[in-house]
């Protein structure tokens, strides 16, 4: 067994969100010197707000119409972002390399046919025999392709079909923590020689009434006007959901160097755990995770990206956990990514790893995302970024992204 752990590099990134497509678009908006302006849709899921996905040219990554027709918006976004990441890593269309590329997707489910659901609901309300009516309606209303567009593992399946990624293929579920586990597992496999190169990520579409219903089961959606995540601490707090697709190509240092690929950043560590979310329990878990990471972090200024969902009491617990980093000699500059992009659920942690890698490769950190006072200025070059990711319902994760000792992407 390989006991010398390989370094894990980020060598390719694909990102599409409510802010736009591509790293430069995001970088420009998040480092303009002013508080960034999020894209907020007040009508699509009214009374709830969402950060809607921008338009993107599906054909650029999914050229065949026959492939496009087999997917819904969620799979389009995932397959598209995955293609961007492969392009960016310089391995798209490299059949040999793609056949050795492993895939881990953090997935929810695809879109239901909401019009069909609504038509069936109407019919059931009028029927004397709702059981038989339901079956008859389902037989006539559901389209065969829709099932495949809904199946969680078919985002991975479509990525294999469209882009030719064909080593192992796994799909993790479980909301925000699926994204954490996906990247955590890929990193562990690379570190131990269980794969040299991985395509990992996820996507989420917020403009979906079926998901609005699911997320509101816990009365966990924000009902008020738009406001930064840290400003939602009163009462139950609440989430504003956002759309995004984020994929990364992760590689062992040796594999990347052998093909001349430069990294954006290095994934130093990802740790995660869970609790039953009784008062104070998540904070306790996070403190335990920090113990496993802290010795890698020098005292002083520390760039922090948080995926805080906005749901209370976790909002306050995570806020306190991050603020209390100062008790350990760190000066945290916190950025609540959900303030500007919403909770992108399965994509949330991959988005944060993308943004951390971007900051490291650019040698600068993002401007504060709000003026709540929670987010402090950060000047200078962040050699590392700490990512805090808690699920809106369950699960806590922590990651440290840092700088490998080689020239980075974009450096001379």
């Amino acid at each position, binding site marked *: 067994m390989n006991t010398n752990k390989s370094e894990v590099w980020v060598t390719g990134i694909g990102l599409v969100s409510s802010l736009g497509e591509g790293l430069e678009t995001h970088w420009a908006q998040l480092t303009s010197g002013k508080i960034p302006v999020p894209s907020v849709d007040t009508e699509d899921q009214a009374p709830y707000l969402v950060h809607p996905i921008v338009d993107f040219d599906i054909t650029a990554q999914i050229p065949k119409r026959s492939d496009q027709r087999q997917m819904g918006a969620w799979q389009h976004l995932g397959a598209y972002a995955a293609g961007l990441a492969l392009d960016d890593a310089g391995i798209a269309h490299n059949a040999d390399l793609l056949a050795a590329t492993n895939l881990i997707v953090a997935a929810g489910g695809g879109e239901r046919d909401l019009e069909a659901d609504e038509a069936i*609901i109407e019919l059931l309300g009028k029927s004397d025999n709702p059981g038989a009516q339901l079956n008859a309606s389902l037989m006539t209303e559901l389209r065969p392709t829709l*099932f495949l567009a809904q199946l969680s593992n078919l985002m991975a399946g479509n990525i294999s079909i469209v882009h030719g990624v064909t080593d192992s293929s796994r799909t993790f579920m479980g909301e925000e923590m699926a994204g954490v586990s996906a990247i955590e597992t890929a990193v562990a*496999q690379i570190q131990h020689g269980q794969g040299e190169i991985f395509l990992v990520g996820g996507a989420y579409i917020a403009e979906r009434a079926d998901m609005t219903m699911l997320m509101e089961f816990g009365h966990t959606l924000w009902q008020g006007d738009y406001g930064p995540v840290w400003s939602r601490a009163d009462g139950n707090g609440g989430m504003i959901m956002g759309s995004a697709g984020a994929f990364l190509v992760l590689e062992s240092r040796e594999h990347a160097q052998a093909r001349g690929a430069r990294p954006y950043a290095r994934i130093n560590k990802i740790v995660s755990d869970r609790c039953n979310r009784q008062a104070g329990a998540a904070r306790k878990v996070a403190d335990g995770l920090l113990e496993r990471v802290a010795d890698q972090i020098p005292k002083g200024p520390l760039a922090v990206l948080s995926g805080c969902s906005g749901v209370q009491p976790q909002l306050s617990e995570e806020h306190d956990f991050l603020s209390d980093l100062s008790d350990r000699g760190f000066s945290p500059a916190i950025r609540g990514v959900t303030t500007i992009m919403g909770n992108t659920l399965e994509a949330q942690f991959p988005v944060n790893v993308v943004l951390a890698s971007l900051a490291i490769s650019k040698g600068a950190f993002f401007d504060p995302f709000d003026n709540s006072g929670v987010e402090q200025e950060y000047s200078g070059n962040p050699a590392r970024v700490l990512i805090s990711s808690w699920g809106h319902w369950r699960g806590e994760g922590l990651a440290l992204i840092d700088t490998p000792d080689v020239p980075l992407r974009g450096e001379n």
Partner: protein
Amino acid sequence: MAQTAKDHMGRPIVVVTGIGIVTSLGEGKEDNWRNLISGASGVRKITRFPTDELRTKIAGIIDWQGEGQYCAPVHSLTLARKSAAEAIAQSAIGARGSFPGPLFVAVSPAETNWDQRMEIYNSAAPANCSGYDRLVKNVAAGDFALYYSLFQFGSIAEHLAEQFGTRGQPISLTTACASGATSVQLGVEAIRRGDADTALCVGTDGEICEEMVVRFNLLSALSTHNEDPQGASKPFSRARDGFVMAEGSATLVLESYDAAKARGAKILGVVRGTGERADTFHRTRSKPDGSAIIDTIKRSLADAGMPPEEIDYINAHGTSTPENDKMEYLALSEALGSHLDSTPISSNKSMIGHTLSAAGTIEAAISLLTLHAGVIPPTINCHEQDPNILMDVVPNVKREQAVNTVMSNSFGFGGQNVCLIFSGEPG
């Protein structure tokens, strides 16, 4: 450095120390095994919901638990709890409510079902409001905290982690009909990395509802032999016309050989190798040349470090669809060569039905039981074998035969292919 047991690639050897199983054939290893070797079928007429208008009215449904109102994630969770409890008890690992390793759960990507949808819709009648507007409004006004905890995609794994006290963040996974085998793969990989000494690998699927039947019917994937439920699942036979949906769960406790030996645990089998290769051909079909499946099988042999000749028996994916059984034969004959001629292969799905997300774990569990018993469960309903499938499918009647090494195949929609190889305890 302490003596440690390593495999041919210098990795920790992974063994199985606990097995639990619940299927349409019964609850627990004993009931299942007795029914499997007697050639019983767990397939029956669906009574959970009306089947008027449905093309398929049969399934290997588990309805003998009498739990009142059916709720899919609750049923899947109940099945998983039973199989996990049985496996952990057999393994005698950890303390009650404290399993000393990670949890990998293969689950169906279940959504709210029509029962819940209509319950919510009818819970209030706000003015000028219909469809999803009304659903969302009623959810916001009502108390659906229970559904919040049940209908997350991570719900089942979370509730299992809470009950059994597994370590770390549990992983919920889906690779369609290969999911159960993927849960075993993930456990094997964690132990081989040295990240864990033990892992709890669960597959569960209790999600048969109207919409699932219709979805698979629309893909023409299901048998419609409604008049003879027990004869409907007929893998490798000339008359096969689709699979039969089923419910069930199985759990394996995996451990490193060293850890199992150190605590004096009884070793039930060794996970010798795993193989995987994603297909690019089609969302529901394999490449016509079978190359992805062939590669999957070859990779499992390479991972196990064994030639095809060491495989004594194959636990088939064997779904009973015309396409799958033909492709499985094609791939096996290519990957195993002439050794296939003398290797028995049978399909547990002929008796249990196809338990979808749980099938890979259930068939891994039965593969291990087969090693122990020296008896091969039959492929039932094989009265006229497909003349183009030239394999020894152990038709209709069990066979007494010593089995030292088993290969278990799992293939799923989305080009998912996984192959697992198990052996008895090393000497």
